[in-house]
């Protein structure tokens, strides 16, 4: 391999993109700077385009094993590549759940066949049922770093406290899906004027905020490190900020693209493409979460990529499952909504959707810099992407962006010695 | 377009209807039922003439929208109005009144509607204008004016109370 990316703008996590050429030879970045085209290199014209490290998504549901109709690990990783993402962390709510070294091994073996690295988290409690502690030491040995019952909170605070006391010894960290199991109701949409209009019992933001406060207190008291997944409300975001800044709790936050972009009123006439858990809140929450992202309350952006079949999503709103896909669309939608509108710059995306998630998973940070392994993407901000079923590589197409055209296009993905994608 | 009847001619036609009906009744009570819309105005005017002549008469209005046979061809169903027949229809002698008789279908619908109010002893039909081209066997007993028209022509009747003027026009398509 001998690639010369000529005339692009190289984005980093610390500053605005700088005009630079990038020379990649045999999976390594040989030079970055304004340089002459080397002889024999394949020259890619990157003028007007952004060259940046591959993204990393620490919150995806790949449904394998057990629900391969919705997604497989292979299809999921192809959707990631399609969206400029070169690494993922799977959630453990598969069937069976990822709650034993055997299942971890099976998932990681499957992941090793894919074109990008696949990591997995594992359950805090056996089968995510909230009754017994999962074999944490064994899970660590099998290669797990993140423990979460994602999809549900651990309902029993005493059990979560003990797991934290126990698991911290093994240098694991915890991730919380926060939701009070009694307050949340049927988990269909936010409680407010929209739930009233549609006649469906809503889930108040309170349900998430109370549980978040509980989990952070438990982590703080036990010395555990805690990551709060998919924060949806302004007060939730402020809760993390307060504990981190005022009490020094070891807590980080995560925000999904959809909680930044959509609100419950987008549900309109029972559109299940806007049904997810935690639910979409209000426009005010969108604004607060965006501010939280800019302020660094959210360490990472994660999609919560949650594929479901067309039939499942065509059911009545209450019956349809929660969640939307995100890997194919995340980067382009973030560009369309926030970078193209100058809400924030590429440095934020690189930091929150590439560097920090890798640091959180204790991986080497991908950088477009001399001497680093090639893990980079080329993004054209001037092109458009239309998210048809055919375009998206996920097995499912349950996204509000289905058949929408957004500004920006992932043009090329390079990982190691391979070009994974070239439009 | 041509003016077929001017106000004077319409007035004369109404007088003619009133005279004929008065004569035919021979002193018996007459109950007028006008078909909405414009048949009711013709009926009201004839009724007024008869009352002036000292005849014993009553007057009601029939909306036949719910009895039409052409809903399937309309993009939206017609605006309904109330019927108002305040006297018992059972056993009465009714003169059904419309402005124009053409295919006869409206009268069929009106008879259906009328019979849902009760069972009259006798029903006669009076029209201001008979323009011909019947499609079903319905014939008026009293006619104000016969007009020669083509099958495709449109006959537009305007009446004082509802339209602000009296006129009958034939519009050639």
């Amino acid at each position, binding site marked *: 391999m001998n690639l010369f990316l000529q005339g692009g703008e190289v984005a980093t996590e610390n500053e605005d993109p700088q005009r630079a050429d990038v020379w990649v030879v045999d999976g390594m970045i040989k030079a970055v700077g304004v340089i002459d085209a080397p002889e024999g290199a394949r020259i890619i014209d990157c003028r007007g385009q952004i060259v940046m490290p591959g993204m990393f998504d620490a919150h995806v549901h790949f449904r394998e094993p057990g629900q391969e109709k919705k997604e497989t690990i292979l299809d999921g990783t192809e959707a990631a590549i399609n969206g400029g993402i070169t690494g993922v962390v799977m959630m453990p709510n598969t069937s069976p759940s990822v709650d034993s070294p055997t299942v971890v091994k099976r998932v990681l073996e499957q992941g090793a066949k894919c074109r990008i690295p696949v990591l997995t988290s594992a359950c805090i409690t056996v089968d995510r049922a909230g009754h017994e502690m999962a074999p944490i030491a064994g899970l660590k040995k099998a290669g797990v770093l993140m423990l979460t019952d994602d999809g549900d909170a651990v309902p029993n605070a005493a059990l979560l406290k003990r797991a934290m006391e126990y698991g911290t010894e093994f240098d694991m960290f915890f991730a919380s899906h926060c939701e009070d199991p009694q307050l949340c109701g049927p988990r269909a949409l936010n409680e407010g004027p929209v739930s*009233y209009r549609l006649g469906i019992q809503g889930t108040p933001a309170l349900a998430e905020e109370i549980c978040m406060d509980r989990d952070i207190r438990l982590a703080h008291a036990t010395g555990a490190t805690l990551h709060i997944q998919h924060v949806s409300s302004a007060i939730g975001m402020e809760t993390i900020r307060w504990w981190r800044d005022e009490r020094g709790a070891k807590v980080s936050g995560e925000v999904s693209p959809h909680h930044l972009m959509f609100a419950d009123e987008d549900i309109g*006439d029972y559109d299940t493409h806007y049904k997810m858990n935690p639910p979409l809140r209000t426009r005010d929450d969108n604004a607060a979460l965006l501010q939280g992202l800019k302020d660094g309350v959210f360490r990472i952006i994660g999609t919560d990529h949650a594929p479901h079949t067309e039939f499942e999503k065509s059911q009545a709103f209450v019956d349809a499952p929660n969640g939307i896909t995100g890997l194919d669309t995340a980067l382009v939608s973030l560009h369309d909504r926030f970078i193209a509108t100058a809400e924030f710059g590429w440095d934020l995306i690189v930091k929150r959707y590439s560097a920090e998630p890798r640091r959180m998973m204790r991986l080497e940070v991908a950088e477009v810099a001399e001497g680093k392994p090639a893990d980079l993407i080329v993004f054209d901000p001037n092109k458009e992407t239309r998210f048809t079923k055919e375009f998206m590589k996920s097995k499912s197409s349950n996204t509000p962006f289905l058949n929408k055209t957004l500004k920006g296009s992932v043009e090329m993905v390079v990982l190691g010695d391979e070009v994974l994608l070239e439009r | 377009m041509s003016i077929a009847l001017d106000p004077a001619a319409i007035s004369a036609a109404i007088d003619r209807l009133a005279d004929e009906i008065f004569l035919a009744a021979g002193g018996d009570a007459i109950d007028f039922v006008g078909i909405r819309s414009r048949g009711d105005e013709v009926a009201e005017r004839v009724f007024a003439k008869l009352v002036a002549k000292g005849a014993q008469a009553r007057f009601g209005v029939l909306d036949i929208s719910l009895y039409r046979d052409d809903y399937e061809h309309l993009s*939206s*169903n017609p*605006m309904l109005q109330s*019927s108002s027949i305040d006297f018992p229809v059972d056993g009465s002698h009714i003169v059904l009144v419309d402005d124009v008789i053409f295919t006869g279908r409206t009268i069929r619908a009106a008879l259906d509607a009328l019979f849902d109010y009760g069972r009259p002893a006798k029903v006669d039909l009076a029209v201001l204008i008979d323009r011909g081209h019947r499609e079903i066997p319905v014939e008026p007993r009293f006619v104000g004016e016969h007009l020669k028209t083509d099958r495709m022509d449109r006959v537009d009747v305007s009446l004082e109370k509802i339209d602000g003027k009296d006129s009958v026009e034939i519009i050639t398509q």
Partner: protein
Amino acid sequence: MARKDFLDIGSLDRAEIIHLLDQAVPFKDLFTRSVKKVPALKGKTVLMLFYEPSTRTLSSFEVAAKRLSADVTIFDVPHSSVTKGESVRDTIDTLQAMRADYIVVRHRLAGQPAAIARQTNASVINAGDGAHAHPTQALLDAFTFREVYPEMEGRKVVIMGDILHSRVARSTSTILDKLGVEVAFCGPGSLVPQTRFKRFTNYEEAMAWGPDAVYLLRVQKERQDAPFYPSDREYHSVFGITEDRLKEISDKGIYVMHPGPINRGVELCDGVLDYDRCLISQQVENGIAARMAVLFGLKPDLKNELS
């Protein structure tokens, strides 16, 4: 161009509502004739698809359809394959083959009639879906209120009871609001959500507001998975129309409405039913006229085959 479906009040504008109310008048006039039937929907089929038990609404629609000379088929849902896990979509495919012109749907799930409407050429009428909407009830309520107050603008109606779980509260408040009536909600704090309407959690304060009518709702225990108030007895003493409160209502000449079926001894005492300004039986009669107007006003999309 006429609508295909009648799914909720929110999507109707004021002019459409007034048109429907006006259309209901001649239908009500028919009820005094010896023959109450008209041939308007002769040869058409109205399918009653009730996924939730209802005798009142079902009979009202049945009478309305029959008075329009339509053929009525009642699809007996509890004994059909629907209970065996057949999806609504599959059922609709079957029903489509029956070539109904109008489908009247009641469903426990909000939004289901709308989903059915998208999948069929027939006109779909929402006869109540979950806590979402009950638009024909709203129409008959507005019609009834207009009979006693032809000038509705500026009049006040307090809707009292379980607002949270009530599709009637949602639809009736919406239609009254669109017609210029001032609406307030009153009930136990746990059953009255924050909305754009005035909110009372105290009976006396609601009455001091000066309503022209009190619209009582059935307190629907069967919908509640957790207690929202301590007991029916306590509800009756705090929010029910007791004999004492009936006297005050009568003195002030306030009308009483209720969508039925009533819970004696909970939201009202027996005396209310004999009160001369109680409009409950008038509502039932008007329900037939209102539903005739709705059936007559819709246009099934029978020419285009949906994919």
